């Protein structure tokens, strides 16, 4: 019988950061660690061939996706995309002939450590401003790099809906970064 307090003391911070980097929500990250501990105690299939940390992280990855599935499925699709005419909602970025309303600017690539840090602060804020359903699918695809087909299955959406949501998420982040990051 493993002692859960030992696990929490030895790996708790690591697992929590791992979850927070993907869920970007302290409560959800704590939930993910808790679910991981529950599953670990229940199955205790850890035989010591791999390190306990690697084993726990493997469980955590699944628990993070479970939480994302539960949370994102609760949010109606129609809040973030026009399900019937999937690309009309993006029209504020383009005119009727499909030209950019505000042309994308040349971004200053963050050069030094301080600039990179500032850029990441802006990016984190922009992620927070996105509708939760869009930032959720964006994290699954672009950060966790989960296959698009698996995301569609988990969230019970069509491939086209996934493309449209990811497009809207990236367009939203781009716009936000353009407004709040210094241009060249």
């Amino acid at each position: 019988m493993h002692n859960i307090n030992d696990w929490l003391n030895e790996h708790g911070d690591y697992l929590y950061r791992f979850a927070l980097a993907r869920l970007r929500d302290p409560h959800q990250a704590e939930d993910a660690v808790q679910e991981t501990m529950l599953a670990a105690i229940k199955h205790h299939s850890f035989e010591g061939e791999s390190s306990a940390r690697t084993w726990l992280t493997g469980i955590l990855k699944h628990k993070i996706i479970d939480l994302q599935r539960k949370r994102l499925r609760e949010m109606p699709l129609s809040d973030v995309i026009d399900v019937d005419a999937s690309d009309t909602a993006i029209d504020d970025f383009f005119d009727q002939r499909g030209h950019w309303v505000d042309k994308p600017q040349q971004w200053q690539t963050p050069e030094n450590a301080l600039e990179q840090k500032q850029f990441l602060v802006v990016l984190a804020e922009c992620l927070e401003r996105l509708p939760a359903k869009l930032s959720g699918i964006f994290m699954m695809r672009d950060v966790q790099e989960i296959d698009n087909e698996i995301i569609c299955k988990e969230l019970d959406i069509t491939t086209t809906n996934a493309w449209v949501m990811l497009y809207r998420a990236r367009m939203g982040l781009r716009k936000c970064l353009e407004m709040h990051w210094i241009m060249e």
Partner: protein
Amino acid sequence: MLTCKQVSQLISQSLDRPLTLTNRIQLKVHLVMCDACTRFKKQMQLLQVAVHRLRRQTESDSSIILSEAAKTRISHTVASKQQ
């Protein structure tokens, strides 16, 4: 001839699926002539790099910890669910 709107959609989709040969050619032709979409493509690439950097930054930030209160909560919850 694709519009900038269509091109931006294809650039986004290229991150999620392999584009058809036709799409790839259409995209190339457009990008040669369009600075705005070329900059958009670069922005999408920078965004990809940046979100991974943000993930790694959070993962390695030693000031982020699972608080003692949280550990106690988790420990209690697990104990209660085991009975």
